[in-house]
């Protein structure tokens, strides 16, 4: 049995809040390019935190991130265009809609364990995309425009930051408190957990709903930044691919996995910005190599090498 070091929740919360405070003032110091990259990293981080909560803690590997990103985007446009709701209230509504959709489809997706959840989320994402492409009520294949001009980039950056911090705090709350034991018991042996009085369905549902709410908020902020959305982009499989790639590269189940993975994938994307196809193919190769040789990702590798160094210095 490997001992897992659990940093106390208050300390981790403090670290997240300090990072939040520092980054809040970042727009004054980093330029346009830095803000663009930072915005993208924060959106990816939010998605990856949620995905990691599902996969790392509850054993749910999803290929349906895009369906919640797209849902958030379309709900946000509906509320902003139709009801003139302020953006913060819109984001709350998007989170609720994401959680609601997750709850709605969970009977079908959780009926079967493991692999079928993955395949089911993939089918769900494709189904929603096809519906949006075909239904003219939601703009069809051409999509819809945001009625008012989107806020300036520094303000959007702060929205993305706020959403990412909410994601980070949510995950801290889930994995650094007693809830983590329940989550892991379901991941490791659902039947044994059920014997101990844990209700696996509820635990998995909670993780799925939280992750979906976070993805919907991230999708909403991304959509507002774009100023116009269409189903191929907002419901594109690329969201799901990117998120999965980030967390596997960073380290599934590792607290820092999403952050490390998001930074890595963004850096790789920037390095290969002129070769989009090669970029994705290379990400695929990295995935295969890491799954085979470093199943705990970069964070796992770093921890292992840190361990070796410490042992050597002690010896």
């Amino acid at each position, binding site marked *: 049995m490997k001992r897992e070091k659990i940093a106390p929740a208050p300390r981790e919360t403090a670290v997240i809040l300090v990072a939040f405070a520092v980054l809040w003032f970042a727009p004054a110091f980093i330029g346009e390019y830095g803000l663009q990259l930072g915005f993208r990293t924060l959106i990816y981080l939010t998605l990856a935190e949620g995905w990691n909560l599902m996969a790392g803690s509850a054993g749910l*590997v999803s*290929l349906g991130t895009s369906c919640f990103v797209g849902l958030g985007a379309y709900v946000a446009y509906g509320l902003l265009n139709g009801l003139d709701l302020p953006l913060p209230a819109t984001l709350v509504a998007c989170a609720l809609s994401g959680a609601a959709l997750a709850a709605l*489809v969970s*009977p*079908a*997706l959780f*009926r*079967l364990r*493991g*692999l*079928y959840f*993955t*395949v*089911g989320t*993939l*089918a*769900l994402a*494709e*189904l929603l995309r*096809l*519906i949006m*492409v*075909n239904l003219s009520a939601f703009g069809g294949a051409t999509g819809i425009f945001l009625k008012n001009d989107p806020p300036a980039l520094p303000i959007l950056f702060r929205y993305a930051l706020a959403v990412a911090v909410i994601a980070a705090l949510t995950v801290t709350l889930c994995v650094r408190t007693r809830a983590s034991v329940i989550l892991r018991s379901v991941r490791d042996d659902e039947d044994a957990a059920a014997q101990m009085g844990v209700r696996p369905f509820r635990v998995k549902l909670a993780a799925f709903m939280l992750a979906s709410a976070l993805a919907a908020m991230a999708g909403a902020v991304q959509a507002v930044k774009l100023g116009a959305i269409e189903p191929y982009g907002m419901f594109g*499989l690329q969201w799901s*691919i990117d998120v*999965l790639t980030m967390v*596997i590269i960073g380290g599934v189940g590792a607290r820092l996995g999403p952050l490390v993975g998001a930074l890595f994938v963004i850096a790789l994307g920037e390095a290969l910005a002129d070769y989009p*196809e*090669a970029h*994705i*193919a290379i*990400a*695929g*190769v990295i*995935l*295969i190599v890491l*799954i*085979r040789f470093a*199943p705990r990702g970069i964070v796992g590798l770093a921890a292992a090498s840190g361990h070796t160094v410490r042992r050597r210095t002690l010896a």
Partner: protein
Amino acid sequence: MPDLGVASSSIVSGVLLGGMLALAALGLSIVLGVMRLVNLAHGDFLLVGAYAGFFFFTFTGVDPLLGLPVIALFVAALAIPVYRYLLQPLAERGAEAQMMTMFAIAIILENVFVLAFSADTRSIGVSYAALPLTLGPVTVPLVYVIGFAISLVAILAVHWLVARTAFGRDLRASAADAEAAATIGVDVNRVRMLTFALGVACAGIGGTLIGTAFQFSPSSGGAYLLNSLAIVVLGGLGNVLGTLFGGLALGALQSVGGLALGDGYRDLVGMALFLLVLAFRPEGFARGRR
């Protein structure tokens, strides 16, 4: 509402397409049964078959349907190293690692197709591609009928292989209980490798047939994967004839959906069916899995 001739022709076309897809779905099903692996790259292996047929025809000028044995062997030969070097080392690590590896292969293949063959939509332009076949009010392209017939023969051949041969006996034993099969002397690893190659070859043959009858592009793989999965759940895992009927049913329902709601809804029918079957009748999919 379209008239009777158009409607019946469309439904018959759908059934014929469903029969071709059933072959690909059968490949997915036997891999799922024996290896407990949802091959997320199945749709892209189907496209490998379609591109192989396309270039076989372009360079040799020989009808790709005559070249099917060569194409099947080619696609199967690609599958063997994938199994040997990428999947087999992960065998002890649970199904997820293998599935994620196949997902990575899917995104690699899709982007390699774009890089190597461009993102263009193609079809294999055999000389009889446009010839119609008319029977009463029903008019369907001749290639659909030929593709359907070849698919049917291939499905029956796989059925014979699984039900009547020594390899099929080992395959069924490995699917039912790999440990027990190993105990009585079945080389489970070899069976899995050959099953994977067979499953992928089914996708490859299906791909050439579909590429002859329809258009395809590097990004078509995902839709073929999901439609194949829908067929597998409709027909029940491990049931060869069920898979065939699942394919015919899906094809017919897609045509009905397309006629009633518009052509854009064809693929939507497959996804919706898949999720509905998963919600209400999952046992066909999960047989023997605990």
